[in-house]
C-alpha cells in the first residue's frame, strides 16, 4: 500500500529556558520536556486520519513536525515520500496546512487579496493565481464576500478562508490543526461535513486532522490515533477501538480511559505559555520535572 505519511520513532524534545536563579545554580543542567515520543504511524492515500488527545498531548507539535515548522530530535518521517528534515521544501510543495488561528491572515486586506498573496508564496501568479483563488472562493462559498476586508468576516468565514488557503497548491496531503476550534456548534458541524464531503470524498485528499473533540473524531475520521503525553496509545477506526473493549455500547470516551487510564477532559489551554513554563521550572527545582513529561501545555 502506498503511504502518504510515515513516521518512524518520531520524537521531539524541547529544552526549557532557565530562570536566572536556575542558570546560576545549575549552569550546565539541561531541562527537557518530551512533547512527542517515538511516534510510528502510516497513513494511506485518501484517508482521513485523526489525532485525538487533550490540550498539551502533543498533537500540534506532531503536526508542526510533519509540516517542517520544527525539526525532530530523533526519528524520521516522510510526507509524500519526502523526508521532513532533508527535503522540507518538497514536503511543503505538496502539503497544505489549515490552522484555527484567525490571526494568520492580514486583517486589513480583503479575502481575495489575502489568498492572492499566499498564492504567490505557492508560486501562482497573475492569471493562474486569479483562477485558483476564484475556484477556491467558490468551493468555500465566499465568492460574494471576497472583496470585503478579512476583519469583517465571521469566525466561520475566517475558518473557510483558512481552508481555501490550505488548498491553494492543490496539495496531496492536508494538515488540519483543530479546524473547528472556536466555532459555534452549527458552524463546526457544517465545516465537518465540508471536510468529509468536499475535501476527502470529492477531491481525494489525504487529511491529517488534530482534534480534542471526541464527537468530531468519531464523525469524521477513518482511523484515529489517541495521543497522551506525547505517546500514541492506540490506533484504529472508531468502530474497531470501541469493539475491542469488553463493554456494551462503549464510547470513544471509554476507549480513551482504557488506553490512558485517565478521563478525557477538554482542558483549557494556559492563558500564557510562559507562565506555564515558569510554573514547570519551579516544579523542576523541586525535583519533579527532570526526565519527565508534562501534560497541560500546548506547544
Amino acid at each position, binding site marked *: 500500500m502506498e503511504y502518504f505519511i510515515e513516521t518512524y520513532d518520531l520524537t521531539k524534545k524541547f529544552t526549557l529556558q532557565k530562570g536566572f536563579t536556575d542558570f546560576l545554580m545549575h549552569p550546565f543542567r539541561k531541562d527537557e520536556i518530551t512533547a512527542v515520543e517515538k511516534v510510528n504511524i502510516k497513513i494511506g492515500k485518501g484517508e482521513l486520519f485523526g489525532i485525538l488527545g487533550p490540550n498539551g498531548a502533543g498533537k500540534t507539535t506532531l503536526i508542526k513536525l510533519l509540516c517542517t*515548522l520544527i525539526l525532530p530530535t530523533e526519528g524520521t518521517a516522510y510526507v509524500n515520500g519526502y523526508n521532513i528534515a532533508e527535503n522540507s521544501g518538497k514536503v511543503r510543495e505538496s502539503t497544505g496546512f489549515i490552522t484555527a488561528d484567525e490571526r*494568520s491572515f*492580514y486583517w486589513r*486586506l480583503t479575502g481575495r487579496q489575502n489568498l492572492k*498573496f*499566499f498564492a504567490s508564496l*505557492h*508560486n501562482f501568479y497573475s492569471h493562474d493565481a486569479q483562477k485558483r483563488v476564484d475556484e477556491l472562493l467558490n468551493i468555500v462559498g465566499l465568492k460574494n464576500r471576497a472583496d470585503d476586508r478579512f476583519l469583517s468576516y465571521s469566525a466561520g468565514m475566517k475558518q473557510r478562508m483558512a481552508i481555501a488557503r490550505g488548498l491553494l*497548491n492543490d496539495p496531496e496531503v492536508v494538515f488540519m490543526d483543530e479546524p473547528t476550534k472556536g466555532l459555534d456548534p452549527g458552524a463546526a458541524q457544517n465545516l465537518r461535513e465540508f471536510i468529509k464531503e468536499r475535501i476527502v470524498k470529492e477531491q481525494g485528499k489525504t487529511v491529517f486532522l488534530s482534534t480534542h473533540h471526541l464527537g468530531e473524531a468519531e464523525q469524521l475520521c477513518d482511523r484515529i490515533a489517541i495521543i497522551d503525553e506525547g505517546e500514541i496509545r492506540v490506533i484504529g477506526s472508531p468502530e474497531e477501538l470501541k469493539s475491542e473493549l469488553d463493554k456494551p455500547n462503549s464510547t470513544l470516551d471509554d476507549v480513551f480511559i482504557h488506553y490512558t487510564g485517565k478521563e478525557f477532559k477538554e482542558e483549557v489551554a494556559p492563558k500564557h505559555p510562559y507562565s506555564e513554563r515558569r510554573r514547570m521550572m519551579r516544579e523542576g527545582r523541586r525535583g519533579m520535572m527532570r526526565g519527565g513529561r508534562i501534560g497541560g501545555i500546548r506547544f
Partner: protein
Amino acid sequence: MIYKKAFSFIKRDLILATSYKFEFFLRLFFMFFSILTFYFVAKLIGGAGVQYLEPYGGDYFSFVLIGIAFSGYLMTALRGFSESIRGEQMMGTLEAMLVTPTNTSTIITLSSLWSFIFTSFRVLVYLLIGVFLLGVDMSDANLFAAMVILILTIICFSSIGIISASFIMILKRGDPINMLFMSTSELFGGVFFPIAVLPGWLQTVSHILPITYSLSGMRHALLQGYSLHALAPDIIALAVFSVVLVPLGLLAFKYGVKKAKVDGTLIQY
C-alpha cells in the same frame, strides 16, 4: 519568478501601509522637519569648520543632507529585516508563510522590500527639497557613480541587517548587532560631521564601518561629481565589506532558522 513574488510582497505592504491613511500622510509630512532643522543649524554654523568640509565642497547643509538621507538605508537594513520577522510573528502570519514552498530567507528578504522602497522615496524627497528649495548644488553630480555606491551600500547594509535578523530569530529581542551599529554609526560614520573632526584614534573606528565609505563616496559622487576611478578607494572598501558580509549574513541566517526550528521557537516573539 522572484520579481513576481517581490511584487506580491510590495503590493501587500503598500495596501497595508495605505490602509492606515493618517499615519501614512503623517510620515510623509514629518519628512520635511528634519531637513529644515539641519538647514537652520547650517545657517547658524555658516563658514565655521570649513577646513573639515572642504573635501566635500565646503557647505555644511549639503554635507549633512546626504548624511541623513543615506544613513536611512543603514537604519532600514538594521531594522527592516528584524522588524519584518517580529511584525509577522506578532501578527501571527509568519507560520502561514513558512508552510509554503517559499523558503524562509526569501520571505524575510522580500518582507523588508517595502521599507527599502519607502526609504528610497524619502531619500529622493530629501534630495529634491535640498536641490530645488534649499539651494544644494548637485549640478556636477555623477549619477552613475552614485548608483554604484548605492548598490554596494544596500548590499553591505542588508548583510548586516540579515545578521541582525539571525539574532532576532534566536533571541527575539536584544540583538547586539543592531545596538552596536545603531550606536556607533552616527558618531563614527560621518553622518552629521566629517570624521576628520574626530581624534586620530577614534578615526580608526570610523574606518572599520561600511557607512563611512558609503557616505564619503556618495558625497563625492553627488556634490563633486567624482568619477568611478576617483571613487575607487570607497568602492573597493564597500566591495570588500560585501564579500565578507554577504556569506556571513547568509550563514548566520541559516543557523538562526535551524536553531529556531530545533527549539520550536520560530513563531514565538
